């Protein structure tokens, strides 16, 4: 022991002295360090069975985010059924294999690796939570399998590499949209923010909102947070009430926001609540009742949209799953349809061809807004602001990027 410590110190000193900047930056995609067990079969997706094209999906079907993951799975499933009913892709039927990630990134990484190497899927869809999608993106990018995430809004997801796409807008845009609307249209002067501390999406939206809103001359008077799964928000709301805000930004998910709205009215907060696309669900009305009326949220599309495609989707979804589709279902549906369109255009089913076909997606008429993928593989979409009134959502305005 007495000799060990100096030896360790000496070793550390030598290593510290030897440290230098890596001369060559790590090649993008494959990652700088190659572990021995990891084979680099970029683009070597083997040909699948002759008559079907197998897609893969990893989603949170159990655990804290299960309700979102299941909506997303339903949307994707519906798109695939429709495509198959319409004759499939170039004469081939589509099939999808769905794995559960229990709302945990390590399970997502394991499931996606299984999809890639065991099931040899052509393309991967998923997930809702950005941390799960990040875990998947690492593996998909390394293996050269294209991946489209329907609703992971964190900026870093598509930065993982050129095989990773998304069909939703990113957090900074949505935070900005609501800040602009709150300041310019609602003329709010001082707001409070109530964040879901377990959700990266909520934290990001709140941060952008706070920054933009104060830049536009507004004032932030209170900041509170809760954890996904909580059901009692009275303490936070009572504290917010004391700060006397004109409005409260609650960029959470409908599973909590419905109850928050109810309890906000209960403690006597009459100011409007504002939120993001996480609000869009029939469950919001079920949980919030009349308390959600008069509140605003940003979304990808308005269910009022007379576009027949949107209306048909809503009708089909209701017929199939006995519930009104939420934003996650709509985005899942869009992601699957973008994938199917790309597969139709792709000259073969290898990773690089499918990737290039997806990247060319332009003015795609999705049910949740028109999708054009930019050079960062993010969807460029305008956002709509919806108001909750009379037990449904009403279109207020559109804000462009």
């Amino acid at each position, binding site marked *: 022991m007495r000799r060990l410590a100096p030896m360790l110190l000496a070793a550390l000193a030598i290593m510290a002295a030897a440290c230098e900047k890596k001369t060559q930056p790590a090649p993008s995609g494959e990652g700088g360090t190659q572990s021995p067990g990891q084979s680099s079969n970029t683009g070597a997706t083997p040909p699948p069975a002759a008559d079907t094209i197998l897609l893969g999906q990893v989603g949170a079907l159990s655990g804290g985010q299960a309700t979102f993951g299941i909506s997303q799975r339903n949307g994707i499933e519906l798109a695939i059924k429709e495509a198959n009913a319409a004759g499939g892709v170039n004469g081939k039927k589509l099939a999808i294999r769905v794995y559960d990630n229990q709302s945990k990134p390590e399970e997502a990484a394991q499931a996606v690796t299984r999809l890639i190497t065991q099931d040899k899927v052509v393309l991967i869809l998923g997930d809702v939570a950005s941390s799960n999608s990040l875990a998947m993106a690492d593996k998909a990018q390394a293996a050269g399998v294209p991946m489209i995430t329907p609703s992971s809004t964190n900026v870093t997801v598509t930065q993982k590499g050129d095989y990773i796409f998304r069909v939703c807008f990113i957090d900074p845009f949505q935070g900005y949209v609501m800040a602009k609307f709150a300041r310019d249209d609602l003329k709010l002067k001082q707001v409070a923010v109530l964040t879901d501390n377990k959700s990266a999406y909520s934290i990001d939206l709140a941060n952008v909102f706070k920054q933009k809103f104060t830049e536009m001359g507004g004032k932030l008077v209170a900041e509170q947070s809760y954890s996904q799964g909580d059901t009692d928000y009275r*303490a936070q709301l009572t504290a917010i009430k004391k700060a006397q805000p004109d409005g409260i930004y609650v960029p959470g998910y409908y599973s909590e926001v419905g109850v928050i709205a109810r309890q906000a009215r209960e403690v*006597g907060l009459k100011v409007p609540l504002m939120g993001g696309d996480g609000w869009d669900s029939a469950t919001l009305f079920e*949980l919030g009742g009349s308390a959600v009326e008069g509140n605003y949220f940003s979304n990808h599309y308005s269910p009022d949209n007379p576009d027949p495609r949107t209306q048909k989707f809503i009708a089909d979804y209701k017929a199939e799953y006995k519930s009104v589709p939420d934003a996650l279902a709509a985005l899942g549906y869009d992601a699957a349809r973008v994938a199917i369109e790309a597969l139709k255009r792709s000259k073969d089913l290898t990773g690089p061809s499918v990737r290039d076909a997806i990247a060319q997606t332009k003015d795609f008429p999705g049910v949740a807004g028109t999708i054009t993928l930019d050079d960062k593989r993010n969807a460029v979409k305008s956002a709509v602001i919806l108001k909750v009134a009379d037990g449904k959502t009403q279109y207020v305005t559109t804000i462009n990027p």
Partner: protein
Amino acid sequence: MAQLLQHLINGLASGTIYALVALGYTMVYGVLKLINFAHGDVMMVGVYMGYATAFALGREARASLLGVAVVFAVAMLGCALFGFLIERFAYRPLREKPRLTALITAIGISFALSYGFQLDIGFLPGASPRAFPEIITPTEWLIIGDRDVVVWNWQVISLLIAVGLMVGLQYLVFGTRFGRAMRAVSWDHRVAALMGIPTDRVIALTFMLSSALAAGAGLLYAIKDTSVSPLMGLYVGLKAFVAAVIGGIGHVPGAVVGALVLGLVEEFVVGYAASTWRDAVAFGFLILVLLVKPGGLFGRVAAEKV
């Protein structure tokens, strides 16, 4: 000042519900020395039983006094039966085995219930949170100032039900033959058996009682926060367990005090400090209490026999 009062009311409201769940933990621990990790999930099952009953009754019937009684009765009796089955088939066969063994079956049951209820197959409710039907129409009972302090009827009703259940329990444990048998089993179940106490029956009844209490607590919780989900048992169960330990696990009034203290601590951390640190403060408080009083606030550290 008004805000302080409101926080006090909120904290007590959560505290009473923690208390009812904590009582279940503490009773089972008392007789079996088993941390029943499935307790929160049993509560969740009870809530869904009440949910189904309330729906079956329809909008009119469930809002009446009788309707509320029926919902509570169905959920509590159903849960008692459920608790009995769990005890009979998952815990009793392991009675004479190392204690940790029963803990693992408790974890297994907890996983099976909380994940099972997330499935959307058959009668299972699925992962999406549901709004609990209004069986007590919320009305303000007391308003001070410009809604500076609001006390709701259900807060008063919950408190009354909770206090009623606790007083009943206290009488049961300390004033009846069954309670004496329970305490004897808790002291030493082998010796109790030698004294002619039917330990199996006492333990089964304790389980049923704790499950029924859990169902009652769960319903109060659902009335308070209106949202029910398959994972609710996990969150509430953990907090109630902490409350039971703060009070001294196995000690009935201790569980109540621990739960009220925990409810208030959480409320005031959120109200006056940082809401992000709520859970850390709750557990930090627990550790602090245990460092000062290793047996919890009221518990005794058993004298060691050499």
